[in-house]
């Protein structure tokens, strides 16, 4: 079976493996053909998020993708490539900090109910693999966009009854945040954990409006033109 890997150039590899995961194939190449091939991996069971990469233009976890003839493997997008299939995720992860994606340290004594817990169960399944970040087209126009996984994580905390700092969290999302998302849904399509960051962003938008924020693009549109879109000078 032939596969192609984007390194400094596109390189072809021949492997004799059937029904193998991409990670198994990469390991085979590294240990028997070409020790210089670089990629990250960890758990082999789709939970650590290390081996996210792109196959034929779509983000996958190498450990949960079965290789096909002529597959073309590339590193994630929107991050600096360190080498071969390894990207530097530091900047991407920094967005969690900028978005204040943690529980408010002023601890409350609220005990979540079974229903409360269900509200953010899926968001807390995130493995930070960065697939959504790579698939997000907004980075082409705004490299400072807080991005899908950070915003999902903020929703996970904002929606938690134990958190009592909703306002400052929502404040932090107004610039380069929820309104910059185009709701294209690419993040949702590639998430290995079936999380929809798009839906979470929409929930954060509703929450923002409840707190008195307005969609800045809508606001400028309203002040700048009439409702049919024609300018009114």
């Amino acid at each position, binding site marked *: 079976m032939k596969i192609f890997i984007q390194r400094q150039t596109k390189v072809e590899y021949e492997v004799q493996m059937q029904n193998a995961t991409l990670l198994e194939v990469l390991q085979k190449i590294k240990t028997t053909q070409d020790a210089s091939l670089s990629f990250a991996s*960890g*758990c082999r*069971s789709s*939970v*650590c998020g290390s081996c996210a990469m792109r196959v034929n233009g779509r983000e996958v976890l190498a450990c949960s993708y079965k290789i096909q003839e002529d597959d073309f493997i590339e590193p994630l997008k929107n991050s600096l490539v360190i080498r071969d299939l390894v990207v530097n995720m530091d900047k991407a992860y920094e967005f969690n900090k900028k978005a204040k994606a943690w*529980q408010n340290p002023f601890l409350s004594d609220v005990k979540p109910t*079974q229903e*409360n817990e269900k509200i953010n169960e899926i968001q807390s399944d995130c*493995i930070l693999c960065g697939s959504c970040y790579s698939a997000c087209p907004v980075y082409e126009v705004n490299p400072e966009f807080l991005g899908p996984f950070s915003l999902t994580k903020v929703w996970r905390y904002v929606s938690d009854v134990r958190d009592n700092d909703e306002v400052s969290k929502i404040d932090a999302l107004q610039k380069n945040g929820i309104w910059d998302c185009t709701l294209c849904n690419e993040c949702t399509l590639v998430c290995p954990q079936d999380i929809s960051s798009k839906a979470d962003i929409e929930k954060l938008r509703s929450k923002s409006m409840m707190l008195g924020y307005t969609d800045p693009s809508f606001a400028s549109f309203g002040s700048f033109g009439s409702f049919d879109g024609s300018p009114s000078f």
Partner: protein
Amino acid sequence: MIQCDVLIIGAGGAGLVSAINAHKKGAKVVIVTKEYATRSQTCMAQGGINAAFGNAGDDSVEAHVQNTLKSAHGLANEEAVRFLCENAKEAVEWLDKLGVCFSRTKDAKIAQRTLGGASAPRACYAQDYTGLKILHTLYDVCLGLDIEILNERYLLDVCVDANGVSGANILNIRSGIQEQYQSKSVIIATGGYSRIYDKFSTNSTSTTGDGIASAIRAGAKVSDMEFVQFHPTALKNTAILISESARGAGGHLLNSKNERFVDELLPRDEVARAINDEISKGEDIFLDIRHLGEEFIDEELPQERKLAKFYENIDPVYDLIPIKPVAHYTMGGIVVDKNSMTNIKGLFAVGECANHRVHGANRLGGNSLLELIVFGKQAGENAAKYDRDVALSQEYKKEIKLESFHKKIEINFYEIKEKLGNSFYKNVGISRDKKGLQEVLSEVEEYISQLPKMGVEDDSQTYNTNLIEFLEFKNMLEIAKLILVGAMSRKESRGAHFRVDFPYEDGGLK
């Protein structure tokens, strides 16, 4: 040179909890990790974290203590076990306040389930993503506290001078440049060594015992290295873990004749051995959770269903899950005192790499996540308090010589690594005897002597995983030898260490 008060090596649950607690005591903390914090082994823990809340049935701290001591087969330190169990409720309540999404009962209590060897439903859980959710929440807390985490840094050596620990030599994996870290204290939180069993391990490929090997080189003591826990239920083809909670919830183990052959809720050593006996009789072994029903499986065991479907191509709602026992957790590690400090002043160890003597010869499910939180707090606080009473050492080792990159490689170490794993599974696995152990020891010694013929083919400075994997392999060989020496000198059977030629416990060998 990077300077700090507390240098933490490893960013799994143990490292992050230590960091949070050291930071709270006012220390300047730096964490280094060879991956990223959220990718460590802790994310793979599924079943739960023990605390005797009694939310799902009568329970007590005393019962937790007794279950743990029993499972440890006389090798645990009762004082340490009591400390662990007595602090369990507070540990879980702390996690709950930080925002861990624990599964809940109808009356808003933290849900609990029964794991092997426990006399009550004691494991608090978050579906079967307990470790993942704890790890990510801890990571988020570290972000909120602005704790510095440096990713993709590999520990080369812990630096020690006449006054104790003084820092560490670290390889920046991205740049290939060696970095020196100077600190008042160091916490090693680098995890266990199960990957010596290579493809016969549930663990991440990173669980290679680097911290333990470095600690030994620095003069730290280790103990109980021969005790390696085999998890009874890993997927047959890939060794991917199927959580003990599947058995806790009523899952059955069946042989090819569709017969149950063991009480599934015994401690892991006993269940693994029973499975191994069946396999050696030629049986295939399966985990059956079909009777639990689709709704229950999707609610409580969603990850297990996903893993079985993808990696074994079966749906456990309708099919039997083919399994085998594989290496899962290593009880041995760096000896620490009741302050989590090693025999080297200022050097602390915590988590799977440390031996607090709470697991003894066999760890109970749900006690490893607990260990991270309870001893992580202790190690973090003590490391922050620890103050070198002399000026920080300037005596750093010069750049450590790594491998020669351009030499002709006669032996591919990746092949040897696989052979080592196969031999370990066969002869240093669930059942052992003198002949098998001796054979593997000779093998390991031969590999060590062949090291000059092995080496690093990739000569790039940037992100050289070929180099990192070779350094890991050398650490594994060092540790492999210690496991073997321990296993050969322990002429008895105890917990996870079962000698066919000495099938009974020897009271004199505690």
